[in-house]
Every structure is written in structure tokens, then in C-alpha cells.
């Protein structure tokens, strides 16, 4: 079955935790007849909403992994990527955003734009994702879609335009007025499936006229035809749709819809908007890197007849075995085809090709450009590119941040040990920000990631899905070391104890490198160090970087230049020069004023203004630098930069400080030198540990 690209939408549903995203997705699947009954996220029936297929998600009532699902709405095919709402899983969000063409940003009509929505919005802007806004929970006490729309303008800096106004609010929510057709829309029947259009209630007419005026004003910026028609007083629905669509695609306009998924109101109108305003795969320009031509960027065609380029954006190990979710950007993938993983050049045969509906699936014969499907039994990692033979391209690598926190895990018994390694193998493939390694000195397995919750969730999953019970150590911050000034070295490595000796002299200097981890410059003239040993020096320096002398942390930001040295005709060797370089680095490092760096997090705390003082106090106590505060009506958010090491357990502290009314998000900002007193403590601890082992 070939899908007409004009009738295909790949959309994400992205939002703040608890704004009702999963409920909304559930309703969409119901109205598009993919499911036949509605379950709630925290439902009493114990079935749970369809998109939260992982046990853990059901228990916590939150969505952790983005599952892709496929549905049909009025002749359009829609692939929905459900994305997690918590900031600790941003790699998941970012990866999902990459494969989307458009998104629905859900906001709670009471809570409005909160810090998480700001983060998600920023990510959408980074990936140039056109979006529409759906203001959910209009049935809640305190619902105010107008205020939320203003916040979208102020806080998210988006040109938000109301496409609807509510008929009644809070408990009295009945439907919406469509400002394009100028009709009242009611959602009736048990599940809101019966849509009734009627005249606008008289008391809302003035307001509707006024908001329609604003809508026309905003939309006419994108269509001269519409502008002329407005002047003549004859704008048609089609003209308005076209103009709004143009504005949305150019990322300059964001149409706003509203309703209550829980009360079954407004969801169908939002689906209409998805098909009307969000882009088709053809509207979006995607690029890949040409591996045959120095990774030059090339534009993909979205033509199903061109050679295949596709991206594996998600792996899942479910009850059906290993599933790989793939977005096809160009060409067609057929059952039985041989495709190539451009990371390692391995050939892979396409066995089963399926279209996913949350946790059910439908076998298909082929899938073409623009589509999102899943493959069975393919061994690969998230972010791998699959192409047809001869098409040597790679989708540009995604921005993957370095992990900032790690902890040791110890399996409780032998069986747990085996299961644990299975689980870790799976998780590291699914999530590039989750890493694992064995510490050679302590023999412990260390896992590292982007935050406390990030690691906690994987530990939970290990227990539940893999029955691997583990003991968990204290979280450790990933320190680094670097140098702050230039220093020279001149070191001779000499060893003559029977047999062949070792000799090598290396001289030069090290200096701070602002952008980058390590650079090696060879300025040797006249063969003071023979050619063949230059790379030995490089190797020796790189080895030195693995562990700094202060805290045993990796060293970054160093540029090493060698400009002199000496060799011996018999005694010089690869090993001798590596050791000479290690000695030379040690000598230079001591003189270059080394410092310890620690990860600094950008923290945003949001809550009622009355708690602002307490919040700032708590951040200040944690060595935080408060950058500023944003005061709005009775809500204040505080932005600060705080060392990660001080943020452990902050959620509990914040909850008790603010009666649970404030919340915080944090993301990695940068590495900064630790203050002297803290550095001394870290060094002492590192020394104590060295002596232990």
C-alpha cells in the first residue's frame, strides 16, 4: 500500500507532565477507531491507556518511552509519536522530534505554560518543528484558555492565534466556537463522538467576532489573496485555512485550539487541525551527510523511487522480540530487501515490516518515504542510518550530551548478574545518553546518564522487565580536570636494566584548549624524534588524559605541542616514547595549574510567588548562582546555575519547602571549576580511595 504523501502526517504530542497528553492520545485513537474502548491513565479498570505500554508507566501514570502509533482520520494517515514529558528523558524527546514533521503542544488550561513546556518548546524550535497548541483540561476549575494563550505569546515567544473560543468553561464546558466557520461546535453522545454544529450562542457573538478579527489580521500576513478578500469583505474558509497553514509551516504562526480530552470535547477539531495545518513529509526539508563526499550535506527528496535513506530512531524490546522503529526519508523499503547500516556497513535483510499501533501491529509489504514503520529482528543502535546498497549517506548525527552522573550497581545474585548484563546491553542501544562500563579498579558495574531520575527509571526497568535485582550505590558526579595555563615539559625516559633498554626524550608545552577535548601538534623539525615515534607520543599523551592527578577524573581541554626530543638508535621504541610522553605530560600538568571541573545544571524552579524567598534560599545553600527571577501575577520562576553534586534529593527538599506547590526542571549547562574548598575535599576523597584499592 502506498501512502499519498499529501495525506500523511507524522506528528508528536509533546507536553508538560500531567497536562493530559496520554489521555488525549487515547481519545485520538478512539475517534480514529484504532481502539474500541477508552481507558484512563490511572484507570480503575486496570487496563490503562493504550500508549503507556510499559508496566512501569502504568504504575507511575507517566509516559516514559515514545511509542509510535498509526491511525486514520478523514482520509489522512497519521503517525503519532507519544513523547515523554519529563526532562530527564530529553534524549527521547529530542529523538522523537527529529523524526516528526509537526507537533501538537498540549498545555493545561489551569497550569498554563510551565518550565517543562518551555524546554520542550525550545527543542521544537531547535528542530524547526511547526506546531499547533491544544489547551486541554478546559473543564477544570480555574481554566482560562485566554491566559494560557497570552503565556504562549509571552513565555514561549510564539505568535499564538486563537482558532476557537470556549463555550462555557470549567464544569460548564459545552463546546467551542470555530472562528473560521463561525459556528458553535458541540460534542455529544457518551464519548463525545456525535458532533453537532449550531449557531453561535448570542452572548458569545461579540467576542467571537472580535477574536475572528484578530485571527484574520494574523493570518492575512501570510496571504495577499486573503488580505484583499478581507478588504472586500469576502474571505472564504479555504483562504483562511491556506493562510494559517502557510503561517504555521513557516514557524511564524501557532494556531491555538482547546477542549478537554477527559470530557471528550474538542479532540476531533484538533485532529482536523492536524490534517489542515501541520506539514506533510514533503513540506519539510531533511538532510543527510554524504559519506563519499567528506560528509557534505545533501537534501533528501522524499521521492519513493529514489534510493533508500532511513533512520532507526527507536529500539524496543517487547513481547514480540526486538523492534526497530524506522522513519523513511527517501525511497522505499520492501519486505525481503537488503539494506545497509551505514555506521558499520553491515548488510541487513528486511524480514518483517510492520505498522505499529501502540502494542498491536499490522504486517505490511512495503513502506515509502515519509512513513514511520517498525522492523523485526534487526541488530542496530538508535540513531543508525539504513540505506539501499550504493547510497552511502548517513543522517546527521544527533546531538548527544555526555552523561553527568553515575552510580555503581551490584547484582544481588548470579542470575541477576546475567539478567543485568542483558538489560544493560539493551538500554545502551536504546538510549545513547545511558552508558555503562566496568570500573577496573573496583570491579563494579557503573551506569551513567543525564540525571537521578534517568538512572532510577532504568534500575526499575531492570527489576521489572529483566528480573535483575541490583543494589545501588551512591550517585557520583562526573568530574573532569583541565589546565588553566601554559606549561613546558622536557622529560627523558631512560631504563637500562639488562637486556634492551628504553630511551626517549620529549619536550614541548601544554596549554588550555577552549573548544575541544584534546589536540596534538607536532612541531618537531630535523627528526629530533623519528617519524615513527610521533604517534607513540600522541598515544602516550592520550593515555595520560584518562586520569588526572587531582581527582582521577578524565582530563579535557588540553592542547599538547611537541617541539623537541631525542632518540637512541637501539633503545628507542614505541613503548619508550609512550612512557616518555606520559612522564612529560605529568611534568607539564603539575605546572599548568590544573583544576577540577564539575557539571553545572541550569535549574528552573517555578511556583507561587510566596515561596520565592525560600526557593532562592535553598538554591543559594546549594552553591547555586541565581541568574534571575521572572515574576508574573502570582507565579514566580527562579533560574539558577547549580552544581549537580548539590542537587541530589532536591525534589524532596523543594516539596517540603513549598507544600508541593513548586516544581523544578534541570538540564546540563556546562562544566565549571569547583571552588577551592570543595576541590580539596574531592582530592582527599580520591586519595583515600586510591589507598583502599
Amino acid at each position, binding site marked *: 500500500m502506498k501512502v499519498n504523501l499529501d495525506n500523511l502526517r507524522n506528528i508528536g504530542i509533546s507536553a508538560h507532565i500531567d497536562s493530559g497528553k496520554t489521555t488525549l492520545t487515547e481519545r485520538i485513537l478512539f475517534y480514529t477507531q484504532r481502539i474500541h474502548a477508552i481507558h484512563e491513565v490511572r484507570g480503575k479498570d486496570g487496563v490503562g491507556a493504550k500508549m503507556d505500554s510499559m508496566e512501569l508507566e502504568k504504575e507511575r501514570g507517566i509516559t516514559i518511552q515514545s511509542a509510535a502509533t498509526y491511525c486514520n482520520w478523514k482520509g489522512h494517515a497519521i503517525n503519532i509519536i507519544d513523547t515523554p514529558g519529563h526532562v530527564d528523558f530529553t534524549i527521547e524527546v529530542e529523538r522523537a522530534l527529529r523524526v516528526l514533521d509537526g507537533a501538537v503542544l498540549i498545555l493545561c488550561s489551569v497550569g498554563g505554560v510551565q518550565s517543562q513546556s518551555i524546554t520542550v518548546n525550545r527543542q521544537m524550535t531547535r528542530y524547526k518543528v511547526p506546531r499547533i497548541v491544544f489547551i486541554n483540561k478546559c473543564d477544570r476549575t480555574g481554566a482560562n484558555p485566554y491566559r494560557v494563550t497570552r503565556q504562549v505569546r*509571552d*513565555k514561549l*515567544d510564539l505568535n499564538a492565534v486563537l482558532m476557537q473560543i470556549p463555550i462555557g468553561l470549567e464544569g460548564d464546558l459545552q463546546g467551542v466556537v470555530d472562528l473560521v466557520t463561525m459556528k458553535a461546535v458541540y460534542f455529544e453522545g457518551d464519548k463525545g463522538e456525535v458532533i453537532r454544529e449550531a449557531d453561535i450562542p448570542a452572548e458569545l457573538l461579540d467576542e467571537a467576532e472580535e477574536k475572528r478579527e484578530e485571527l484574520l489580521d494574523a493570518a492575512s500576513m501570510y496571504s495577499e489573496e486573503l488580505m484583499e478578500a478581507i478588504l472586500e469583505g469576502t474571505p472564504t474558509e479555504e483562504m483562511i485555512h491556506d493562510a494559517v497553514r502557510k503561517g504555521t509551516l513557516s514557524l511564524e504562526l501557532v494556531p491555538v485550539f482547546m477542549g478537554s480530552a477527559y470530557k471528550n470535547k474538542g479532540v476531533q477539531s484538533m485532529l482536523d487541525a492536524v490534517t489542515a495545518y501541520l506539514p506533510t513529509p514533503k513540506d519539510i526539508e531533511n538532510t543527510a551527510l554524504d559519506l563519499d563526499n567528506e560528509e557534505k550535506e545533501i537534501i533528501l527528496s522524499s521521492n519513493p523511487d529514489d534510493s533508500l535513506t532511513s533512520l532507526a530512531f527507536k529500539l524496543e524490546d517487547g513481547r514480540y522480540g526486538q523492534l526497530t522503529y524506522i522513519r523513511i526519508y527517501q525511497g522505499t523499503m520492501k519486505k525481503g530487501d537488503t539494506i545497509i547500516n551505514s555506521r558499520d556497513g553491515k548488510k541487513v535483510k528486511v524480514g518483517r515490516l510492520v505498522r505499529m499501533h501502540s502494542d498491536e501491529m499490522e504486517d505490511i509489504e512495503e513502506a515509502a518515504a515519509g512513513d514511520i514503520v517498525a522492523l523485526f529482528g534487526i541488530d542496530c543502535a538508535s540513531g543508525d542510518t539504513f540505506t539501499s546498497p550504493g547510497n552511502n549517506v548517513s543522517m546527521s548525527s544527533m546531538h548527544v550530551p555526555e552523561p553527568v552522573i553515575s552510580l555503581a550497581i551490584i547484582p544481588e545474585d548470579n542470575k541477576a548478574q546475567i539478567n543485568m548484563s542483558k538489560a544493560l546491553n539493551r538500554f545502551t542501544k536504546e538510549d545513547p545518553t545511558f552508558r555503562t562500563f566496568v570500573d577496573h579498579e573496583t570491579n563494579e558495574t557503573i551506569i551513567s546518564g543525564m540525571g537521578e531520575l534517568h538512572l532510577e527509571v532504568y534500575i526499575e526497568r531492570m527489576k521489572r522487565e529483566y528480573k535483575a535485582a541490583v543494589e545501588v550505590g551512591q550517585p557520583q558526579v562526573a568530574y573532569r580536570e583541565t589546565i588553566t595555563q601554559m606549561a613546558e615539559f622536557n622529560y627523558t625516559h631512560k631504563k637500562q636494566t639488562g637486556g634492551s633498554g628504553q630511551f626517549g626524550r620529549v619536550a614541548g608545552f601544554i596549554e588550555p584548549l577552549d573548544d575541544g577535548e584534546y589536540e596534538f601538534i607536532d612541531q618537531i623539525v630535523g627528526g629530533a624524534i623519528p617519524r615513527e615515534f610521533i604517534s607513540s607520543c600522541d598515544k602516550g599523551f592520550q593515555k595520560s588524559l584518562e586520569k588526572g592527578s587531582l581527582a582521577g577524573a578524565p582530563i579535557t581541554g588540553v592542547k599538547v605541542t611537541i617541539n623537541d626530543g631525542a632518540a637512541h638508535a637501539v633503545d628507542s621504541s614505541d613503548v619508550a616514547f609512550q612512557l616518555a610522553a606520559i612522564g612529560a605530560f605529568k611534568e607539564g600538568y603539575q605546572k599548568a595549574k590544573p583544576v577540577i571541573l564539575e557539571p553545572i545544571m541550569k535549574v528552573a524552579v517555578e511556583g507561587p510567588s510566596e515561596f*520565592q*524567598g525560600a526557593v*532562592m*534560599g535553598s538554591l*543559594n545553600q546549594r552553591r547555586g*548562582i*541565581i*541568574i*534571575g*527571577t*521572572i*515574576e*508574573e*501575577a502570582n507565579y514566580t520562576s527562579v*533560574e539558577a*546555575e547549580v552544581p549537580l553534586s548539590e542537587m541530589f534529593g532536591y525534589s524532596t527538599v523543594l516539596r517540603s519547602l513549598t507544600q508541593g506547590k513548586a516544581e523544578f526542571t534541570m538540564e546540563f549547562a556546562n562544566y*565549571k*571549576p569547583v571552588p577551592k574548598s570543595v576541590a580539596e575535599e574531592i582530592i582527599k576523597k580520591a586519595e583515600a580511595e586510591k589507598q583502599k584499592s
Partner: protein
Amino acid sequence: MLKEDLIKKNPLRVLNPLPAESLPDHRMGLVMARAGLGKTAILVQIAMDSMLRGQKVLHVSVGEDLGKAKAWYDDIFRYISEGSQLENVGEVEIELMRNRMIMTFKESAFSRPKLEERLNDLIYQSIFRPDVVVVDGYDFAEADYDSIMDLKEMMAAMNVQVWFSALRHREDDRVSAAGVPAPCHEVDGLFDTVIIVQPEQDAIMLEIIKDEYDSAAGKVLNLDPSTMMVKA
């Protein structure tokens, strides 16, 4: 160049001569300009100068968002550090960051009691004790004499220096006897120092039309229109 030289060579020395002890405890300054002529840039440079000298600065922004205010500081620091080939840039930047805090208010959320409450929060918990407060975006057109007097008294009680920016409107040509244009023509007596930003043919001039504490009155500084940096 070292930080100390940077402080000495700053053209703003005309306004804030060294040593710092010779400065009045509380002074109220005003920078006036039409839209787009660099009010914020000048306030940030005044703030930055104080920060370099080790004073703590609270930047209050009415109506702007936090990111934009912060971006001004980042840009101006970059111009300063690149232009002067400053040494130890990283260290100086961290030091400066500690001397600054930004507070942003939505227009409707800004009021004297609220500002006072916030300042008290900061001071009593010893989170931040400002020596200088710059207020950007305060709407003088909507404010009356009493409310500005009120702010002045509050700042004086807290012993801080305060700088305001005010937006001039092209169509409003009322001027006070001292030469202070609208919308501040009726409150000019409250300010100790007033700087007017005047666009000339291809330069922007800063005219110091009033200065109670110093002989800076009548002096003129320039503004580089491409970087918005103050020049002698």
C-alpha cells in the same frame, strides 16, 4: 589587559570616579533615550562597571524576559573582553556572574511593595545584597511624582545606588527648566544625574545634562552605534 586597567580606562569613570569610597551612598541616576538608542546597553555598562569593581548589582527589568536581559550582559562582556584583550576571561566572568542578579517583572506585576518584598527576601537571607540597582523599562509615562519619590526613599533606606532608564517619545517635546525632557520633566528634581542619549548625524552622543555630585555635568560621551559601547 588586566581587570584593574579595564576599570581605570572605562569612559564611564566620568560618572563614577575612583576610588569607590568617594561616591555618594545613594544616588539616583537616569538614562533617557528614544526607542532603540541603547538605553539598556548603557544601563548594562554602568552595571558591568560596578560589577567589575566588586559591587553587587541587581538588574530589574520590567517587561523584558530574563533571557534577553542576560544576553545583553553576555554581549557586552564579550565586547569588553575582546576589545581589551582581557586576561583570565573565564575567571573574571565567573566573578562577575556572582555580582549580578536579574529580576524580571511583567508590566502588570511590578510595584514598589513587590520590589521591596523581593529585595528584603534577598537581603535577610543573605542571598544577595545589592550595592547598585538598575531598573530598565520602568514606565515613567504612567508614574506620578509620589510613586517615584517612594522608590527613591526605599532605595535610600537600603543604601543603594539606583539607575533608571526612561523612554522618550518623539511627539512629546515638553522639557523641564533643567532641560530634562518628557516623560520625566516633572520629576527631574528627584534625580541626581541625568544622561540624555542624542542621535547625531552618524554618531550617538551621551549628554550628561545634570550631575549633583560631580563635575560631570555638561560632559559628553559617545556611543558606538554598531556595538552600543560607550566611548570617551
